[in-house]
């Protein structure tokens, strides 16, 4: 029997909210699939489109950018810039034919361990039927 496809997800988590939120999920021993490798960044606003393109190129099946809720940013407004930038990147990626489900953004606060867990669970669920991402992936 073929092994079930396990999507690889790169998650850019802002240090103050989303990474802290995922810590909280840990502290609360909430369970979610191990498909995500988190990369902590200072702020969702610091996630350059290049990072996202690169993750897909390197073979990520999904990319998540997660930051603080609007108004809740540790850096006051970094997440507002992120929101705008990510919207544009998302539109572009969809336009060139990447399945929209593969690139997601979420707001997860330091208190939202549950939400983080759900975001990851749902992301994995939505990626599994899509199979491996080959659209932007580098030829091996």
């Amino acid at each position, binding site marked *: 029997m073929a092994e079930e496809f*396990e999507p*690889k997800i*790169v998650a850019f988590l802002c240090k*103050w909210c989303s*990474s*802290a939120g*995922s*810590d*909280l*999920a*840990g*502290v609360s*021993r*909430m*369970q*979610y*699939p*191990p498909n995500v*490798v*988190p*990369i*902590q*960044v*200072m*702020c969702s*606003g*610091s*996630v*350059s*489109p*290049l*990072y996202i393109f*690169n*993750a897909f190129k*390197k*073979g*990520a099946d999904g990319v998540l950018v997660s930051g*603080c*809720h609007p*108004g*809740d*940013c*540790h*850096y*006051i*407004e*970094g997440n507002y*810039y*992120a929101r705008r*930038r990510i919207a544009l990147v998302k539109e572009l990626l969809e336009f060139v034919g990447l399945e929209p489900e593969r690139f997601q953004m979420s707001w997860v*606060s*330091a*208190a939202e361990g549950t939400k983080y*867990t759900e975001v990851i669970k749902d992301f994995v669920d939505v990626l599994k039927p899509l199979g491996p991402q080959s659209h932007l992936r580098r030829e091996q």
Partner: protein
Amino acid sequence: MKKRTGVFVCHCGINIAGTVDVKKVADKLNKHAGVDHAEDYVYMCSDPGQKRIEEAIKEKNLDNIVVACCSPNLHETTFRNAAKAAGINEFQCEIANIREQCSWVHKDMDKATVKAEKITVSAVERVRQNESLEPIGIPVTRRALVVGGGIAGIQAALDMANTGFEVVLVERSPSIGGHMIQLSETFPTLDCSQCILTPKMVEVSKHPKIKLMVYSEVQEITGYVGNFKAKILKKPTFVTDACTLCDECTRVCPVVQSNEFDLGLTGRKAIYIPFAQAIPALYTLDITGCPGLMPIACGKCADVCDPGAIDFDMKPEIVEEEIGAIVLATGYDLYGKEEMAEYGYGKYADVMDGLQFERLLSASGPTQGKVLRPSDHKEPKEVVFIQCAGSRDPEIHCAYCSKICCMYTAKHAMLYKHKVHDGQAYIFYIDIRSGGKNYEEFVQRTTEEDGVLYLRGKVSKIFEENGKIKVWGTDTLIGKPVEIDADLVVLAMAMRPSEGADKLARTFKVAVDKDGFLAEAHPKLKPVESVTAGIFYAGAVQAPKDIPEAVAQASGAAAKAIGILSQERLFHSPMVAKVVKNLCTGCNMCVDVCPYDAISLEDGKAVVNDVLCEGCGTCSATCLRAAISVKNVTPQQIYEMIDASVGG
């Protein structure tokens, strides 16, 4: 030179080792190119664990280390200090979080182990490109700013002033005292609120280290921890220092406005002193109602003022103050009338909120402490108190618990009963939250000694009929509908951030939470700190609180501020943005996005003020030319981390 890296994998007892094969992780890392040492140990954070790290650094001549353990929020400092103790720069230590973000959230050992490896490799790739950095030192202006003159602000100001630091206390209304000065008695001791607060208010006004600025608002804050500059707007009171407090003006003033102090239960003149014990004792001319300003249509007050203290030409004034630390204590407001229309609030005179009821109970209140209902000044015999009016109602109102309502409602009912012995008090509640010293006993007293009737359930409808306020509800304990013909209904309205808190947050560059309260830096470990260094919270500005909590937090904030003010120099994280001059074209985008105004253009190139920069990196994502990035979170590092995360 080739960098030598060491990796230390912590078992955390079985916390990590239970789900992650730590030996395998250490083995894998040992084989990783560039890693010269990898080991695992049961508790890395323990003394012997730290020793192992220090020894390995020395023996193996390591340039940098990764500790794979719990969240960096917990032991990053521990391990960085260990690195420092072993003679390498603290920034040559990175944490791979394989507990909160791995072992605790997964069950499958194989998969969790692979993930832990990736997380650790990713940290290795990051640390290998870390620069050694030294904290940035800045001199400190040893003065504090307190915004808000309620009990929290007063307490914080006094604590700091008594330690010997100058304090500027800014209050936007004409007097300090806040909501506490409006209260009758306080739970659970039934102390007279004014009696315990006024001495503190007087102390503020007389304190040589406190500069009190009432009727003032902070308009702009620039600078950074240790060196803020505040622009404070002093609104004109139109009354000069010549005033002798003779009160003639008030007598002749023809304009009657709603009295804020009594929450509209009474009126006041356009020229007024807020309340008898107001600090400072100064008259203020409220221009919203005064016809006398432009053109002079009235001027009666000026006519009767012997000392000539009325100055219609008084202008707003901007005062600039330099300060080193800030305490925000702007408190709360009650949930708005317009939002609680379902309970007839604002529609029926005899439906009032808790603060209004406080005024009714207060000896200094409109009824001199007699409980008389507003509509007909009769003593209400049946009073319904409704808790959670606006709180704990995520669908329509506020999701959060306002925390103090259970207690003050109990107090209201008790005080009512003390004044109206034959009256009946009903309390609709969801459940009673009486955590706090002597609080539960207090609530028990209301039922046992004062016969207050607690009804567990929600009120479905309130309407006026035959001079009574009909209250329909359900007692969910007996499962039957309840109908009460009340004389007075008191709503324990939700607390919410005082008006303008959102603007305040922007002015001070601090974050607000989803409910509009100011967000603390960490919900557990930094409850007093804001996200901006040097700005602290006291009282209900951060979340609903009762008086002792507000005071405690105020003292905490004061202590934190003193912690800053008592230093010669402050140290700032050196993980700040750095510009590659050659690449910069001076397009100004980084300047536009910087939330801290830390970047400016000099000779057409971006220049970062290290002291202002908080290292968020928004500039680096915006720059099209990769000319700016944050030290130790550079695109190069992220690139390698992506590589490690996707795993080839």
